């Protein structure tokens, strides 16, 4: 296996790991923890949407399952939080496999795929808002127990490092996918399903694999959310907000690129906070500004920030090449 491409991941994670040593402000750390959480959830979406070309509008289904399973196992069954965390990820992956098997076997693609995933997430939201085990409309509150064994910490910094570790693992997973036959097949299915079939690829298997990995990563974000806020209800867990955050980060950052979701999450979150500062007390104005920023990014950077950076580098190269060119013309 090639180690090429590992270095940027190591550097990026190492630099981010130093942040809590420099910044102790809870507001900033809280902002960064949420941004990392969105980066994680977005990376999950990116595996299926960015690399596999299957645009899901229902990643809340996996996020919510992770969050609820972690919370319910602790509250109702006395399971250790860390064990609950792992089981939450497994449950999310299972939900991904089930939905994937149903959707991909029936050959749903494009907007149909998007709508059906949205429908699954909404069904789960409604079920969670009435089922007694999820606390129905009241939600589930995890008991305060500030011990590391219980996955709860006095300060923000440990949460920050855990979120960063999860993002680092997700980066490694995507790196491995990029270097593997599975990754090549996934991209081939995204680019042209008929051509992929003719080359010996079973698109259903490949997409199902991607959906399972994608769901597991996104569920990890849900599990983390439950531990960080110690509260889950149906609107938070299965609400459309997280499905949108999940796809916004990679779309803004750069679809099908390894750093796209992280870049996108930081920019989207920063834009949201900046909009709040600019808008002041006017209710809703921050969302208007936020929306305008997103429209501008999508209009002028079709391939996200990562694509914009590549374009910029190529333009620079062309410009420097042109500077060298004139003497040749003089000879001619």
């Amino acid at each position: 296996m090639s180690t090429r491409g590992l270095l940027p991941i190591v550097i990026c994670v190492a630099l981010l790991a130093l942040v809590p040593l420099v910044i102790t402000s809870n507001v900033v750390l809280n902002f960064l923890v949420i941004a990392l959480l969105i980066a994680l959830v977005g990376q999950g979406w990116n595996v299926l949407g960015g690399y596999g070309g299957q645009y899901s509008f229902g990643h809340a289904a996996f996020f919510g399952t992770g969050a609820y399973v972690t919370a319910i196992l602790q509250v109702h069954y006395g399971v250790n939080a860390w064990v609950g965390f792992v089981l939450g990820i497994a449950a999310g992956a299972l939900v991904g496999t089930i939905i994937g098997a149903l959707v991909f076997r029936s050959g749903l693609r494009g907007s149909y795929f998007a709508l059906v995933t949205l429908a699954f997430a909404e069904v789960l939201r409604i079920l969670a808002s009435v089922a007694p085990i999820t606390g129905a409309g009241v939600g589930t509150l995890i008991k305060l127990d500030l011990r590391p064994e219980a996955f709860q910490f006095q300060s923000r910094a440990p949460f920050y490092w855990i979120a960063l570790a999860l993002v680092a693992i997700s980066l490694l997973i995507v790196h491995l996918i990029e270097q593997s036959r599975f990754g090549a097949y996934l991209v081939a299915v995204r680019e042209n399903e008929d051509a992929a079939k003719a080359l010996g690829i079973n698109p259903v298997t490949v997409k199902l694999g991607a959906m399972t990995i994608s769901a597991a990563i996104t569920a990890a974000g849900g599990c983390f959310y439950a531990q960080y806020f110690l509260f889950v209800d149906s609107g938070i867990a299965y609400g459309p907000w997280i499905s949108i955050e999940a796809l916004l980060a990679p779309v803004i950052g750069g679809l099908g690129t390894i750093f796209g979701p992280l870049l996108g999450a930081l920019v989207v979150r920063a834009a949201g906070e900046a909009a709040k500062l600019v808008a002041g007390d006017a209710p809703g104005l921050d969302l208007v500004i936020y929306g305008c920023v997103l429209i501008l990014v999508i209009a002028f950077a079709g391939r996200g920030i990562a694509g914009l950076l590549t374009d910029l580098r190529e333009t620079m190269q062309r410009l420097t090449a042109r500077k060298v060119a004139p003497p040749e013309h003089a000879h001619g």
Partner: protein
Amino acid sequence: MADALLRVEGLSKRFGGLAALTDASLSAEAGSITALIGPNGAGKTTLFAAIAGFLRPDRGRVLYGGNNITGEPPYKLARRGIARTFQIVQPLAGLSVRENIAVGAHLSRPARADALEAAGEVARAVGLGDQLDKSAASLTVAARKRLELARALATGPKLLLLDEVLAGLNPSEIRDMVPVISAIRARGVTILMIEHVMQAVMSLAEQVWVLAEGRIIAQGAPREVAGNPRVVEAYLGHGAASRLVAGGAGVQ
């Protein structure tokens, strides 16, 4: 006579009221080039799609090396050693030439590095060696046809189905491509090709099957077939053969 690697028996396929294929049979001898020709709308691409697993025939069987493969999905056929190209080229546009070919090479090579290396070799064999790092989307029509061929070839097929790989090429590009195809046969790959470019069919194919209105109307060596009055009529209209003879314009 060598054994038939591919044998198609009595394939029929209807699309609503249109009988695209009626009781079509053909065979391809191992290690040979077999051409399937016929006027536009004859059902050639339908027959191809039925062989390659993209369409399920209503009736009939497809035998490959003696096994019944009728209705097997394309990805399973690819694993059995049947590769195809598409008439309308289907590049993986977002990928480079090397990455495109590597997807095919992955069929027998799980490791990324091996597949990428094999892709380079295949690219050189079809004359794409100097364009490996170009984006597939930026290629010319001729180069895209070569890429289509290279990707299929990279799967290491025993039977290669070529759907009009020469269509849309200019005469000099066709001249460049013909030796590439005969070199593939020389490696022991059996080829079944749909082709409109008769000059290429004449120089490449050992056997020609002629399809018209969904039925096989003639079969034989290229020269024989081209002189067959039924074939001439299928292309030029009823009575054309006798008019040609009467007019003194000899058909080769």
